[in-house]
């Protein structure tokens, strides 16, 4: 089901954001924190297909847009990691989440107390490195010379648009050092656990039903083992 939710922002205001949810008031309720930026598009279908499979296994799931992401009208360049953490925590409470499933960089803003899964987690530094490299390659094609060092400096002081995504200076500085913290209650799910190659690598958004089956099965199996 598609609806909206009220996301709190760091400045105290509320932003109305899109919500995709499968809510049958089940015992297990999973907050989904998706991949970011370019990877968000490439993994969107996989993410929603996993939610459909969880619904079939009588597990509720909630995929809220964070401010500045996906369909949000909030400006991306004004977002910060603490702001997204605030919104993710509010979503966890609002939907009474019992678990969290993060995808790629989504792991960087997962609410601390929730147990769950981290699929192919990625650090902020690696995320930036890939996007900076894409910008350098595009610039060279246009006959312009850009370097990582200069782009990093600009990003830290003024913010930077990378692969079409305007990232504010504060977010940029936070991403450079953003890493996930090891957690005993969050299970790591590697791409090799799903089989095939990561869909974020694909040049065009794609889908692999077997990967969605495998990810949903890993989540379902653990919840059944806990019961």
């Amino acid at each position, binding site marked *: 089901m598609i609806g909206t939710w009220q996301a709190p922002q760091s400045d105290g205001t509320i932003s109305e954001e899109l919500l995709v949810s499968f809510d049958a008031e089940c015992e297990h309720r999973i907050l989904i924190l998706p991949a970011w930026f370019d990877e968000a598009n490439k993994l969107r279908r996989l993410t929603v297909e996993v939610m459909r499979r969880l619904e079939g296994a009588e597990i509720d799931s909630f995929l809220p847009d964070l401010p500045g992401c996906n369909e949000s009208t909030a400006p991306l360049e004004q977002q910060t990691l603490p702001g997204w953490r605030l919104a993710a925590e509010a979503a966890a409470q609002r939907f009474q989440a019992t678990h969290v499933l993060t995808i790629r960089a989504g792991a960087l803003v997962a609410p601390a107390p929730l147990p769950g899964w981290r699929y192919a987690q990625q650090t902020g530094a690696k995320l930036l490195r890939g996007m900076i490299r894409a910008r350098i390659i595009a610039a060279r094609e246009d006959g312009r010379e850009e370097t990582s060092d200069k782009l990093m400096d600009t990003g830290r002081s003024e913010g930077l648009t990378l692969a079409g995504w305007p990232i504010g200076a504060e977010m940029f500085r936070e991403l450079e050092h953003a890493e996930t913290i090891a957690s005993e209650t969050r299970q790591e799910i590697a791409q090799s656990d799903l089989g095939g190659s990561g869909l*974020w690598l694909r040049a065009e958004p794609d889908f692999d039903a077997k990967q969605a089956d495998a990810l949903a099965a890993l989540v379902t199996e653990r919840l059944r083992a806990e019961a």
Partner: protein
Amino acid sequence: MSTTPVSSKAIGQSGLGKSRSEIDRELKAIIADVLGIDADDADAFTPDTGLFGHLPELDSMAVAGLLTEMEDRLDIVIEDDDLDGEMLETYGGLLTFAETKIIEG
């Protein structure tokens, strides 16, 4: 071409001892993952097969992902200065670049 066989453990740990055919196979597998094609189709790539600027789906973001994957799977580091048109233009250019990087260690 014959090469001295090395254990998979040695390859994984140091990146040394990879033969040209091993690098070729791994690089084709990475490209297959990026383009979403079967390994068999990637196998048909020749040194002259065009990449960046020839395959419309291979935009700058996809190439950046490909290079990051090469770093992880071939255990190399790619610098800004390495990113020239020749290296990205054809499969042969990319393969030669990967070999050089692995030898440089």
